[in-house]
């Protein structure tokens, strides 16, 4: 009896020890994150003002703002979304609903999973060769957006496939049994029921894209830019212009990098402020993703 008690005490010691280690590990992560954020906020928060959002970068730190950077980020993201969403969703649907399961599709599957892990600068190189030199899109918003689209494409494909797989097969059978074609089944069931998961995946992908710097630098985004791209709408015929696609640009992380690399302390503060904005954008997008997931989960439970 004594023996058993001793052994239990011994086992419990290890049990308790891991609890402590686990807790400490969690705290290290959390504390570091909070210190980082607190530091960013104390440095950057005083610089956040309306003017900061509406000013171009400048030689004078107090007058410099992030106008060209956030406009550039938004436009690049728009191109990314327009390219990655249709391609990724269509590929995901094809692989899940149409493609027969064989060696080739297995190979494609493994490749897509691996593509998600390719370093982003490699995508930058690919985009430089393909979009800048081959298609001659120039060092433009279009090139930047497409480079990021390549980057998040595997994520979108995988998110699409995951959420399609969550749809029970009985629903597909019910649809086919009524004489529906594959496309009707996809259009009326597979797509609508997987929308929540697909959107979540897309937004998570986009929120990764917005913080990417390497591929954007590789394709030749400018680090200092004091003008906006051509507006997409104008008062003259034909009112809509796509010229902005071919304009040079910068994005938030590049603007930050530019400021951080300057010796003056004031520019460091600007970088911190821009960091807060960038983090806010990412958090907002993740928040939207969580909300969408929650909403769709509530609507459809199998």
């Amino acid at each position, binding site marked *: 009896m004594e023996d058993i008690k001793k052994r239990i005490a011994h086992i419990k010691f290890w049990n308790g020890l891991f609890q402590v280690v686990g807790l400490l590990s969690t705290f290290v992560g959390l504390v570091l994150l909070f210190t980082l954020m607190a530091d960013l906020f104390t440095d950057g928060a005083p610089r956040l003002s309306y003017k900061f959002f509406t000013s171009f970068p400048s030689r004078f730190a107090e007058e410099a703002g992030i106008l060209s950077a956030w406009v550039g980020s938004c436009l690049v993201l728009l191109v990314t979304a327009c390219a990655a969403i249709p391609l990724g969703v269509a590929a995901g649907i094809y692989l899940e609903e149409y493609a027969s*399961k064989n060696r080739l599709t297995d190979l494609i599957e493994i490749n897509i999973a691996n593509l998600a892990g390719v370093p982003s600068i490699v995508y930058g190189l690919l985009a430089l060769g393909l979009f800048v030199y081959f298609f001659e899109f120039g060092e433009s918003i279009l090139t930047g957006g497409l480079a990021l689209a390549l980057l998040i494409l595997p994520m979108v494909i995988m998110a699409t496939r995951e959420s399609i797989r969550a749809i029970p097969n*009985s629903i597909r059978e019910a649809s086919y049994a*009524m004489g529906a074609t594959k496309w009707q089944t996809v259009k009326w069931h597979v797509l609508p029921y997987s929308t929540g998961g697909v959107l979540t995946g897309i937004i998570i992908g986009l929120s990764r894209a917005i913080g990417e710097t390497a591929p954007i630098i590789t394709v030749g985004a400018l680090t200092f830019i004091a003008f906006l791209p051509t507006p997409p709408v104008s008062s003259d015929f034909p009112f809509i212009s796509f010229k902005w696609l071919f304009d040079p640009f910068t994005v938030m992380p590049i603007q930050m990098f530019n400021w951080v690399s300057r010796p003056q302390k004031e520019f460091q503060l600007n970088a911190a402020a821009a960091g807060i904005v960038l983090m806010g954008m990412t958090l907002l997008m993740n928040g939207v993703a969580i909300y969408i997931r929650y909403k769709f989960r509530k609507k*459809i439970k199998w």
Partner: protein
Amino acid sequence: MSAVTSKDLKAEAKGLNFFYGSVHALKNISLPIERRKVTALIGPSGCGKTTFLRCFNRMHDLYPHNRYEGEILLYPDNVNIISPEIDPIEVRMQISMVFQKPNPFPKTIYENVAYGLRVRGTRKKQVIDERVEKSLRGAALWEEVKDRLHNLAFDLSGGQQQRLCIARALATDPRILLFDEPTSALDPIATSKIEELIIELKNEVTIIIVTHNMQQAARVSDYTSFMYIGEIIEYDRTDKIFTAPSSKLTEDYITGRFG
């Protein structure tokens, strides 16, 4: 083999073989399906009754490596519906199916019933409205749902959901209605409602039902076919099968000696 001499057939399987890849699941099956009668398929698990049922609307075509041989003729047109030249969609548009577990779409009650019409490209609201009401009445569900047609189908109880699935299957005027153990996921009260409904429905449509429940087969069907390891052992009038089966195997199964 058949002791039945009626000539009013809706369909007939002749020398049907079915393969899941290299597995020979149905062996040389021949079975008449009487018009506007209920034919029950019974037998122990894995005997191939569901596999056989799913041949009638070509559900096996959805998955790779499945192969049919032989014929299932649909009368009066005399078309072999498992022939590769016949589009499975054409078959499914004429032969509807109700599944083991209620599987309504996560849409409204109305949209669930209207689905078959939408698939066929029907746009006229008036036509769809009428057909939805008629089908829901046919499935004995109208009175319960007429005030909430635009609520989600998932809000219904299990038994109601299954009747909704029957309404969905009825909405396109099928020539044959297939039931694959339609009450196995339901409680006794819901089950008896579905059974009454099946007896009601045979006035309008030919029915084939797979059931693991022999009392159910006895209650609802006119003809019963006993299957065992991919073969039909015996086919006869239901009362005959359950009172005086001619095969020893059938007798052993229905008296509960195995299965």
